[in-house]
């Protein structure tokens, strides 16, 4: 388990992570979301031991990660723009990871690369961004590390590759139930497919409140006659009208929603859970109201 306690990190006096506390449990895929510059990458770098925290601690199974080769040996970190060497080949990556990760399997790495259609004989700099990404993701899967941290996991990947990677990740967790994956990404739909839990990095704080979107509800309605025009009572965050159809996002309670629409005799009233992406967007919109 990764325990983050009172973590603070700043760059040139500007605080990026502020007195943060969080726990990441074993055997889960965690999504780390947040706006640009929220501190997601910084948090991952701190967990990976690349950066030193100003104060606080990050422990893996009780052991401080920073400056601990033992703890770091359990963590595979894939940065948003990983760079080993412009003219480096796949074999250079294999050498690097074989040296440092005892459970890294070159054969599996190669197998993954072939499956991802990455040319193993070409230097990394001849690859496209997505192709390079796939090469590093293949390494992450072959690392068999206890903790896999991936920044912008789906960046540059085509839809097919995204799907393949998601399947591989789920398979990895199925095979190794203790493996923990933390993915920072703006592709919330992709995260929604694979993540067990989510954390929002916002204003230097980590929270999981956005997942419940602070009790936001998305209501799908269909009306035979008149569609209600005044929804003020529900304090809607988003309203979408399409003829006799109405979609409302509100933080009103389910009872209140049903009571409000009952006089209009809706033909359909479905209260559906928000997707991760919707929760993130609507939560932000509500903040801005």
């Amino acid at each position, binding site marked *: 388990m990764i325990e983050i306690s009172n973590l603070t990190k700043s*760059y040139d006096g500007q605080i990026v992570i502020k007195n943060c506390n969080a726990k990441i449990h074993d055997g889960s895929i965690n999504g780390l979301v947040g706006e640009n510059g929220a501190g997601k990458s910084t948090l991952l*770098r701190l967990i*990976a*031991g*690349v*950066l*030193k925290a100003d104060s606080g601690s990050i422990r893996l199974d009780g052991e401080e990660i920073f*400056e601990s*080769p*033992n*703890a*770091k*040996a359990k*963590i*595979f*970190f894939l*940065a948003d*723009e*990983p*760079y*080993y*060497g*412009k*003219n*480096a080949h796949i074999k*250079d990556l294999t*050498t*690097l990871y074989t*040296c*440092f*990760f005892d459970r890294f399997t070159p054969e599996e790495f190669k197998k993954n690369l072939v499956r991802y259609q990455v040319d193993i004989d070409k230097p990394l*700099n001849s690859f496209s961004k997505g192709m390079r990404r796939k090469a590093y993701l293949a390494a992450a899967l072959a690392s068999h590390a206890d903790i896999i941290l991936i920044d912008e996991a789906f960046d540059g990947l085509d839809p097919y590759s995204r799907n393949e990677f998601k399947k591989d990740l789920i398979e990895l967790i199925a095979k190794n139930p203790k493996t923990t994956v933390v993915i920072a990404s703006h592709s919330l739909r992709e995260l929604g497919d694979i993540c067990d839990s989510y954390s929002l990095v916002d204003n230097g704080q980590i929270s999981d409140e956005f997942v419940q979107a602070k009790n936001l509800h998305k209501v799908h309605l269909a009306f035979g006659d008149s569609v209600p025009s005044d929804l003020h009572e529900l304090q809607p965050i988003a309203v979408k009208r399409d003829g006799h159809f109405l979609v409302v996002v509100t933080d009103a309670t389910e009872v209140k929603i049903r009571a409000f629409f009952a006089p209009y005799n809706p033909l359909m009233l479905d209260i559906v859970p928000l997707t991760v992406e919707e929760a993130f967007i609507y939560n932000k919109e509500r903040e801005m109201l």
Partner: protein
Amino acid sequence: MNSRYFRYLMKSFWSIATVYITLFAVFLIIIPFVIDVFCVLLFRGTIGYSAYVVVVGAMCIFLSGLLPLIMHNRYYSKNRSDIILSMPMTRGQAFITELVFGLAIITALLVGCYCVGCCLCLILGNGTSLLGTYGTSMLGLPLLYLACVITFLVSTFAVSVSNSVFQAIVMLLLVNSLPSLVNALILNPDSYSWIAQSSTNWFSQTEVFEHALASLINSGSELSTNSINTFWGSMLALLLQLLFWGGLTVLAFFEFRKLKSEHLGTVIPQRFGVVNTLTLTCMLGFALLTEFFTDLVIMEHNWYAWMILIFALAYFLISVIYFVFMFVVRKKAKFRKDDWIRYAIAIGGGIILGMAVFGIVRAVRPEPMYYLALL
């Protein structure tokens, strides 16, 4: 004990070293040697000598310009720190890893330069073995190596204050070409008076420097005018060098104080990394080669000396144009006050050191073979 990074170090070292040893072996030993053998056989060595010098010189110039760029692309990036520092090792070990990368390449380059030296020795010595040549220079060699190390370190600093590899190269061009110019135009202006020079100058200069050395040992009583100039020039250069190093140490102290933990990864390649050391090694090699050619040909082929002078002037001109372009034409380039100070110290130090190094070399042993040792 963290054995992982030792494993990595060894593999990295070996892979880099093999590539560059092969490169140098092929381009700077085998090919020139074959050329030379043919030349010697066909032209009894007369033309072989010139061909050799031209081929090896051209190769060195070419590689000195090309390799830094190649290595820059291969190894330099601040993003590299994300990977290196996330590996299971401490930051100190990560630092050593990156340093070894640099050393691996430097070693390969030095081996290459050594090979060039061997080739030149063989040819210039008309078949005299390298050992035989060195056998006559017991006094000079330690001093030469010391001078080489110091020059190397100063060049490192000169490059490390640069913000990009291009600036670094220009810095080195400045640092390494200016001493040549100063040496040619101020210290030894006679060397470049084409008509006045003759092959007998070699012997007369040797004699003068032998006197200078003797005067150094015997508190000097029989100094000729020329030797006084050389002797005091060397001493002055040494003094300035000491001052320079004092300043440099202070400056380095302040530089290191600036380092923050999160910058360690980026600082490694920027300040101690491969590109810097490689660039300076190449340029140093080139500069020394230039000096070698200069001093060699002063005695035998004056037109070579002029050619080298033109080279140095051209490089200097390129440097000036670069600076004018960067800071006058492209006014966006911002320079802080301490940047100018650092550049001034680096350039000034380079000039002073260049004078000192070659002053020492001349004062001790002026034979061309000693310049080879510097390589």
